[in-house]
């Protein structure tokens, strides 16, 4: 009798509190173990929702020094079997990011594996800004630009970050905040 009552109460509680999924458990672990460099931090618009959040990056060296870049992380219930979906919310001039904000990072695509943590993804994103990779481009013009001359590429990046044009395309001002 007592057991039945306990069971019923338990069931009531679990439906009220919503079942915590395997993906959420894993995300929770990853988030508590985050150790990001001072150039990065996370922001939870809804603290109840740990599956959707933003990551801010402010590179302190490289082509993009001084920029404020925001990424959106959307993690679905198949995590960690599927990688998190990451979008760059700023329109920036970068060989590995297209004008819609899609990010080409190998560990977010073909090289994803479930043992990778959210921390390693975030560090990977930062690396993309320290060392843009012309070999695996989403923005072909930017990649060719970088391949031809690092100095011209750097000048174009600088101009784009101020909200200027590169070719016909106007980019977001990411230097101010």
């Amino acid at each position, binding site marked *: 009798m007592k057991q039945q009552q306990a069971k019923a109460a338990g069931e009531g509680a679990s439906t009220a509190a919503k079942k915590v*999924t*395997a993906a959420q*458990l*894993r995300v929770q*672990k*990853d988030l508590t173990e985050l150790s990001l460099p001072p150039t990065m931090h996370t922001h939870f618009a809804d603290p109840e929702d740990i599956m959707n959040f933003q990551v801010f990056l402010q590179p302190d060296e490289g082509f993009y020094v001084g920029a404020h870049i925001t990424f959106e992380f959307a993690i679905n219930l198949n995590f*960690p*079997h*599927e990688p998190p979906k990451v979008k760059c919310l700023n329109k920036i001039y970068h060989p590995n990011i297209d004008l819609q904000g899609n990010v080409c990072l190998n560990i977010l695509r073909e090289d*994803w*594996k*479930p*043992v990778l943590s959210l921390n390693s993804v975030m560090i990977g994103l930062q690396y993309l800004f320290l060392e843009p990779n012309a070999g695996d481009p989403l923005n072909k013009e930017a990649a060719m630009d970088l391949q031809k001359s690092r100095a011209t590429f750097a000048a174009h990046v600088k101009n784009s970050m101020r909200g200027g044009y590169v070719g016909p395309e106007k980019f977001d001002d990411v230097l101010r905040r």
Partner: protein
Amino acid sequence: MKVRIKEWNAVSIWHWNVSEDEVCGICRVHFDGTCPSCKYPGDDCPIIIGKCNHSFHMHCLLKWLELETSRGLCPMCRQPFQTLGEDEVITT
């Protein structure tokens, strides 16, 4: 003096034959606990050890290997995942 046994609790301690502080790389839960979809640790939620020496909860690993994107590779070292032969599986 008579002693009446009112209650008796069987207590036994066991753990998988893997290093003490090892966690499943997929769910990040200690191997003495279950994978996230099981309630009771033990034979119902076994651990699979690959030839590459990486181990995972069987349920966690199967879910990964079922996906086309896994290409049958170990979630840790990306070598094709092969289990140790039947009689080599450690269950105590």
